[in-house]
């Protein structure tokens, strides 16, 4: 795994937090803001190593918490658990399929706010929640549909900047059929 993927993921997390803080049209239209960090955690779990996953969970979670009134660090655990769970079972997931990516994203985007809310309530914080929270989590889960776009975007990015894979020759000297008398 190249360092480029890690850098592009961290840059993606930085931009995601910035967009969530500055663009409010989804919140105005649907009553809830969507979160793109779980989608990135799913991508990191499917495509990168544990180092990158940890870096994303720490940087993304802490940056997100810094922009909110969340207790600092509360978002890192759900992000890491999402990424780690995907990483553990990535060989058993049809991770190249758009449907699988979307389902993973929806699950992750529903799981992250639920766990964050649970951790905050356990820690004694008093967030604003009620029956409307169910709608907000639904909207956030639908935000998981952005996961296939994340896969496409990062794949294009990595292909654009990474060295092209050298084509291997099918010729093998040990399998050469030598004709004539030896």
């Amino acid at each position, binding site marked *: 795994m190249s360092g480029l993927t890690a850098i592009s993921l961290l840059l993606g997390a*930085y931009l995601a*937090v*910035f967009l*969530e*803080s*500055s663009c*409010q049209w989804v*919140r*105005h239209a649907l*009553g*809830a*803001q969507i*979160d793109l960090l779980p989608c990135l955690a799913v991508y990191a779990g499917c495509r990168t190593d*544990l180092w990158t996953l*940890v870096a994303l*969970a*720490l940087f993304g979670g*802490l*940056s*997100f*918490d*810094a*922009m*909110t*009134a*969340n*207790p*600092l*660090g*509360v978002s*890192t*655990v759900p992000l*890491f658990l999402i990424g*780690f769970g995907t990483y*553990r079972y990535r060989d058993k997931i049809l991770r190249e399929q758009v449907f699988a990516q979307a389902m993973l994203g929806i699950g992750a985007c529903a799981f992250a*706010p639920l766990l*964050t*809310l649970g951790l*905050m309530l356990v*820690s004694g914080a*008093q*967030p*604003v*929640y*009620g*029956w*409307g*929270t169910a*709608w*907000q989590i639904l909207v*956030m889960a639908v935000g998981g549909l952005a996961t296939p776009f994340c896969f496409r975007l990062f794949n294009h990015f990595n292909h654009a900047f990474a060295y092209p894979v050298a084509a291997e020759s099918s010729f093998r000297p040990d399998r050469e059929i030598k004709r004539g008398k030896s």
Partner: protein
Amino acid sequence: MFRRPNYVWLSLILLLGLIVFNLPSQSGAHLKLALGGLFLPLFGLSGATQNLVQLGTGAFESRRGLQQQIERLNQENQQLRLQVLQDQGIWQENVQLRQLLGWQRNGRWKLKSARVVSRDPSNWWRGLQLDVGSRDGVRKDLPVITSEGLVGRVVDAGYSHCQVALVGDPNCRVSALVAETQDNGIIAPGSAGVLDPLLVYLTYLPNNNHVKPGQAVVTSGLGGVFPKGIPIGQIVFADSVGHGLYAEARVKLAANLSHLEYVTVILP
């Protein structure tokens, strides 16, 4: 199933999360401000781009439209000047009467305009970030208002930016009173405000209150954070709660907290 390095990573993250989670509130707030500062260049860039777009669109406005705008602003300016003259008279009278009674003199507010650079991206809190900080004299617990009414209070101030908890956030409880009946209560968040940020609760009202829909709610001045008389909103619904121990009312906020661009901080 789980290999050893995976356990190590999982334990490490949980440990780090616990450490950061249990940081003293002061250190946590400083760390948050420092991390939030990482985003300031992007917010500055987006603000500058918006200004450029506004300038660009303004350049294509018709001369006739601009003249109409100038005329309207002149009329408004004239009205405001007359109002200020009238208020100055009332102010002088108030000062004299306070002197006669031996009451403490009310100071005029020192105001600082600020631009809203970002909003709290989570769905559980009501907050925003302003482009003013300690270099502009802004510090913790200063009230934030608009011309319509109360917006919130500063909860953390960095050098060049500050975090504001809006009315309706659990970190911004306001002592309020109903202007007509003088009934005191506390403005607090409630489940109705989850989807509509303009709805808050006026709770701990006395049971024998005379609160009715349409009445104005203003700050009471108790608590020492918010000056007395800042408009908060209007009562939309009142009911007895807490097994009849106290009453509660829903209040629609006067300031539109969903579409704030510029606000004013009241400096000490």
